[in-house]
């Protein structure tokens, strides 16, 4: 994707878009920030700036007006790139907190409370949750294990790095086009001295068997209420092949990515990427450009570049969250417990 090619409409509507949010939107649209956690953290950072710089207009109330402002900013971000589930949950959480601000609270106090809410959300749901998941997962990683991972996931990377300090193991990285995020995983893991093998998705069954893979560690974009895992496209394939071979599949997901949506297949709600990504095959590929123009004129060809897919719960052995290790079917239970707690 070429950053220079992005055009996003910015118009005010009910409120102006904060410059930090403007920057953020462009970074989302140009795929500079990738990954559920990174996008959520970046969003929380931008919202902190927004709240800090906010002043209530003379004739308005803070809760109502700030929420309208927030909505306008979020609508802009949605136009840049559809919101991730983690981002949606974060915005919902912050809006709920803003709505609950008692009346007649002076602005500076209300703002500092909201800022604290954002900070706590970031600390508890993302940072501490990641540490807790890392601790749980460390119990499942044994000496001389061969662990298979797919693409790049920040939480899986953290687990591997933390565990490598205690136990020696090796990693097989499976990668999928067009994003080829596995290369990021490969670079970072080798920097920490982890022995890695790298293969593309079509080599998966062979590598799984010949490489004596002991377990598969996957990240997730979101966990749906019917126990299905929404992840980068290709995740479902990896889980399916691993299941067929009797290799346990562990999905690592913080609870802030749990979603009340129910989806049975990958098509009904998904995100389309740039179809030309499928065509351009590499750096300086001479035929790529010509192929692209030929295909563009082809009326019988549709290029479909899906971003996510859905893994059914029967392929997943366990889900590791900061609450502990759960089976996939327990997601609605966690959602129910958390809604009772009101968090």
């Amino acid at each position: 994707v070429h950053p220079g090619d992005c055009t996003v409409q910015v118009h005010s509507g009910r409120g102006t878009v904060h410059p930090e949010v403007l920057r953020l939107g462009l970074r989302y649209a140009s795929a500079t920030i990738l990954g559920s956690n990174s996008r959520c953290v970046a969003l929380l950072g931008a919202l902190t700036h927004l709240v800090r710089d906010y002043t209530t207009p003379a004739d308005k109330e803070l809760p109502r007006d700030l929420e309208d402002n927030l909505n306008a900013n979020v609508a802009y971000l949605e136009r840049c790139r559809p919101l991730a589930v983690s981002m949606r949950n974060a915005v919902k959480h912050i809006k709920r907190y803003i709505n609950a601000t008692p009346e007649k609270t002076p602005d500076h106090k209300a703002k500092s409370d909201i800022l604290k809410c954002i900070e706590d959300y970031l600390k508890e749901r993302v940072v501490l949750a990641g540490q807790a998941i890392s601790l749980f997962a460390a119990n499942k990683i044994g000496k001389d294990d061969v662990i298979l991972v797919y693409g790049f996931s920040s939480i899986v990377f953290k687990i591997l790095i933390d565990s490598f300090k205690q136990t020696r193991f090796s990693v097989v990285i499976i990668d999928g086009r067009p994003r080829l995020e596995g290369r990021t995983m490969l670079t970072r893991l080798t920097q920490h001295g982890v022995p890695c093998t790298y293969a593309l998705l079509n080599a998966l069954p062979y590598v799984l068997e010949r490489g004596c893979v002991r377990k598969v560690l996957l990240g997730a974009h979101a966990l749906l209420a019917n126990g299905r895992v929404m992840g980068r496209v290709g995740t479902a394939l990896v889980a399916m092949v691993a299941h067929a071979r009797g290799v346990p599949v562990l999905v690592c997901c913080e609870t802030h990515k749990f979603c009340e949506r129910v989806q049975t297949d990958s098509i009904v709600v998904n995100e389309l990427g740039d179809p030309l990504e499928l065509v351009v095959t590499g750096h300086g590929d001479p035929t790529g450009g010509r192929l692209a123009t030929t295909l563009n004129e082809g009326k019988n060809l549709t290029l479909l570049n899906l971003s996510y897919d859905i893994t059914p719960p029967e392929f997943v052995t366990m889900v590791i969250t900061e609450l502990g290790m759960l089976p996939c079917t327990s997601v609605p239970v966690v959602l129910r417990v958390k809604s009772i707690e009101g968090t």
Partner: protein
Amino acid sequence: MSTTEEFTSSSIDQTRIGGQTVLEYYAECQRDETKAVAVAAIETMIQVMEKSEAETLQGLVKEMNDVIDILKRTDGNVTSIESGCKLFIRFITLESSVLLENLPFNQCLNMLIARGNKFLGEMSRARLKIAQLSAQFIENGAVVLTHSLSKCVLEVLKGAALDGKRFHVYVTQSGPDNSGIKMFNKLRAMNISATQILDAAVGYIMESVDLVLVGAEGVMENGGVLNKIGTYGIAVCARSSNKPFYVVAESFKFVRLYPLNQRDIPCNLKYNSSVIKENCGDTRFEHPKIDYTPPDLITLLFTNLGVLTPSAVSDELIKLYL
């Protein structure tokens, strides 16, 4: 660090409860063979609490954890000892901070002991409740397959027989300790028609049975169970022949373990602790005494909390622990 631990555990070893050590008292509790192993362990814990000289809740909990460690070193059903005792501690200390604010610790201790006895009472009655719930699943003329010696299954079959149902039971011999023979004798003593079969004959007999009923040493977080070695094979066979596979377990056997596969079962549960000590931790050539049956092979679990599907077990555990 290890020397301090040895010192503490040996001093607890010598703790006198009415003139006996912990292990002696535990052995006495176990003399009633129909009692569940975990119930005997909980009785021991209550005795320890009564004789305890702890001044704080933390001190008491530490003493009890030490007792659990001692009991786990016996050769027996270690899984249910650990799960039962951990649940016991959680039950009695639940919301005890409210109590502690208002009363001195001695009075609190009495209240905790009262709670402990209540828990014990519920657990002792668990099996009867399970027998009542499971009665509907054993129909007249049914053929049941069971594995090894399970006091819970015995109770269920006894209940069905008292109801006046006619049914036939196939019992596996269940090596290496042949505990299935004891099960067979007990069934015959209750006038239930039974046949003893070899472990190897399970595949042969599966087409003639209507349902498989086994006990459990521990119920995992995902609804899978740990049970006498051979259970997994029977479950696979039952699935392949489309026969329902039922597990009977009391709720104190629910444990916060989540094995990924057979290899992932903790060593201290697979082998007797005396065996681990003899081989100094190298268990590669030892035969495991339990195996893990994953939840997708289990149809239903009969527990004193009700008849549960394997996925509901996690729900119950979350309610208990979160």
